[in-house]
């Protein structure tokens, strides 16, 4: 386990996916853990009608010093956590930069435009290659696949949290996440802790 340090101030994290996937759950869980650790955290979100299957993102800004605004400037994401591959690329298109760290779930969610035939979903291999090309470091985290193995596709989100924390780029570790996950999932704590550990494993921790 790497030492818990804030590598940059503010550290800009973007969590992205499709409305309904659980974007807010991830940002709230990670944000709460960071506040417990004494950081000043701002979480900005898209929401509202976007809950109905549109693209969603959370901007999480972490500082030791001051409360930053809820929006990240163009090109200034330090870490992008993607719950869906196309949405990951959408974020890199606006917020990426040569130093960005990306980790994402490669499981596509087809938009209604794709389902209806008005738009085309890109070839997955090409998509993954493109994401890698735009990132300084990339982890492909098969969160949905692993969650399905655990019998609950929804814990894909907790697997992603495990991967994010496991990457060592946030000033968090397993110990700082445990009480937050216990609070958030009082009935399914064991399962979520298992999913969290699986996420850490997937990223090589």
């Amino acid at each position, binding site marked *: 386990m790497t030492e818990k340090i804030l590598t940059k101030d503010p550290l800009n994290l973007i969590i992205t996916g499709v409305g309904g996937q659980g974007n807010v759950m991830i940002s709230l869980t990670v944000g709460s853990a960071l506040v417990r650790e004494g950081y000043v955290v*701002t979480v900005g979100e898209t929401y509202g009608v976007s809950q*109905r299957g549109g693209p969603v993102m959370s901007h999480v800004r972490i500082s030791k010093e001051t*409360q930053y*605004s809820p929006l990240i400037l163009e090109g200034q994401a330090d870490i992008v956590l993607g719950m869906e591959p196309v949405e990951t690329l959408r974020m890199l298109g606006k917020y990426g930069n*040569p130093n960005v760290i990306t980790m994402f779930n490669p*499981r596509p969610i087809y*938009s209604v435009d794709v389902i*209806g035939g008005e738009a085309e979903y890109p070839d997955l291999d090409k998509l993954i290659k493109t994401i890698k090309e735009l990132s300084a470091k990339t982890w492909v985290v098969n969160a949905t696949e692993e969650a*399905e193995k655990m019998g609950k596709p929804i814990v894909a989100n907790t697997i992603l949290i495990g991967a994010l924390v496991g990457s060592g780029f946030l000033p968090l570790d397993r110990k700082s996440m445990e009480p937050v996950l216990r609070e958030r999932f009082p009935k399914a704590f064991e399962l979520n802790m298992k999913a969290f550990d699986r996420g850490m494993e997937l990223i090589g921790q």
Partner: protein
Amino acid sequence: MPDIAIDAPGTSQLFMGNEAIARGALEAGIGFATAYPGTPSSEILGSLAPVAKKMGIYAEWSVNEIVATEAAAGASLAGVRAITAMKQLGVNVASDFLSILVMSGLGKGGLVLVSCDDPGAISSDNEEDARNLAKSLGMPLLEPGNFQEAKDMTKWLFDLSEEIDSICMLRSVTRIAHSRGNVKLGELPQKEHKAYFDQIHDLRDVKPTKFMPHPVPSHHAALLKKLEKARERFESSPFNWYVGPDKADLLIITCGSCWFYSRDVVKELKLEDRVGILKLGTLWPLPEKFVEKHLNKSQKILFVEEVDPFLERSVMEMAASLPPDSPRPTFYGKRSGHLNAYGEMDQDVLIKVIASMTGLTYQPRDIEYAKKAEELAKNYVPERSIAFCPGCPHRATFWSIKNTLKLDGRNGFVVGDIGCYGLALRPTGFYQSRSHYCMGSGTGVANGLGKLGQHGFNQPVLAVCGDSTFYHAVIPALINGVHNQSNFILIILDNGGTAMTGFQPHPGSELNAMGEPAKFISMEDLCRSMGAHVEICDPFDLKNTTATLLEMMAKDEGAKVVVMRRQCELIRGRKEKPPYKVHVDPDECIGEACGCDRLCTRVFHCPGLIWDKESGKSRIDEVICTGCGVCADICPQGAIVKEAA
């Protein structure tokens, strides 16, 4: 969601702006809270209601915003501090009452109204700036610039409200209301509320008379005095501050989330020694002496605010009345065209403006990288339009509406309304909705359309509304339609809660905001009592729904009602397992060879279906599908199979 009633003074919590406002109300010792849900305001009552019992307060999702405000005023009359919360559009609904309340004064309990505005209309049908309403109605106005202030201002406004005997307004915008940040908690008061309306002592010897606006001119004069008193308090408010050099190249005057953006941009451009920021928290009446003191900081002043040039106008108005030897800076902002008087503000826009005004060039990121990233995103990122959720009853309803209107053949159409079903303007609702205004307006507009027979109008008119909207604003429109025998069908999409904003209960619910049993008001009984013909359908029963709609459309003149009853899938899915296991039989699905031309994906558009290009057949996305089984009923080939799960 976090517990806003946590008794941990001095600790820092990650709170949404709305939760911070709710916490501030608790720290102020409120005894009463009301609201009508509306993004981005819903979490204020949404976080108060679950802790209401523990904190000994009453919390209510009211039928609409004017009743919410009136009920909160009732608590104030009896000496209980009360808060009412709504989105910007709701303040319009409440404004009739507010325009009188500001003159008649309050009871002994302070009263605070919170408006959460939605610049950019992310989840609204306008981007109205409710600060104008505070000014035109006569309510002292504060706006928080961060999460801590959201709490602290709310608490302080109760003291001000009681001191000046007037309702006060807190205005928040999306990026404060709906973002999260650190909030340091204060003490929760241990207070017992004793509600009593003292008719003898409260009413006598009060000039002008309380609880009524008459005589209006003297009440109006009293209101102006109250506002002057508020202005005096604002002059020394800790919610206003200046950061920057004594002499600056540029002075930014800002408020709300624009404070955040201004500060971040100045930091990003390393302009701390050249650009000053005057952040205002008490917006109206403008603390003129405080502002005047800072006008000589720079020759150039830029106003940064959302949405209207509210501070810009107030400061310019004040500057115009200053003595001739006062500083005469040049004002920049929306009037000068440097910033837009529409849409949401963000740093990406602001940084360009400030860089250009200070003679800097700003490059957000490596040019080559930017070019590549933008191009790749353009090539590989398909559109992702918003849509009804998988298993949404509205998709089935609008499917039947579409087919019924086609079968009827008289160019009938739907006049829409707001709510999730507003998506019926889009492909997900088969473009069925033809108009879309404020809550209840679909039925109101149908009233007029349905009385145009004498002018040759013979198209069937279908008005749609949701269950919460029905109670909120449709009942008077329906009464009008029944009474005047206007020819339309009202379709109530009853999905069992206020779905768009997070399933808040309404008068048709069996539990109230605090989870206690409530008197359930049956919408069909209510409609029948007006004399309207009412039918009830299950939208998933496509055959019966279409037949019922056709039959209703063929009937004589007059307003009729069809209730489409089926619980929102997001609620049902939490408690129950999917009713069906759905799959596509690859032997039956003949893909492109079928005359249906991919009806299930191309037209029905459910996110739970996938058109597999390789096999040229449909399949089900099992992670997304909720097992409603409706697609099995529309497949002409019978290739989609639903089996009881």
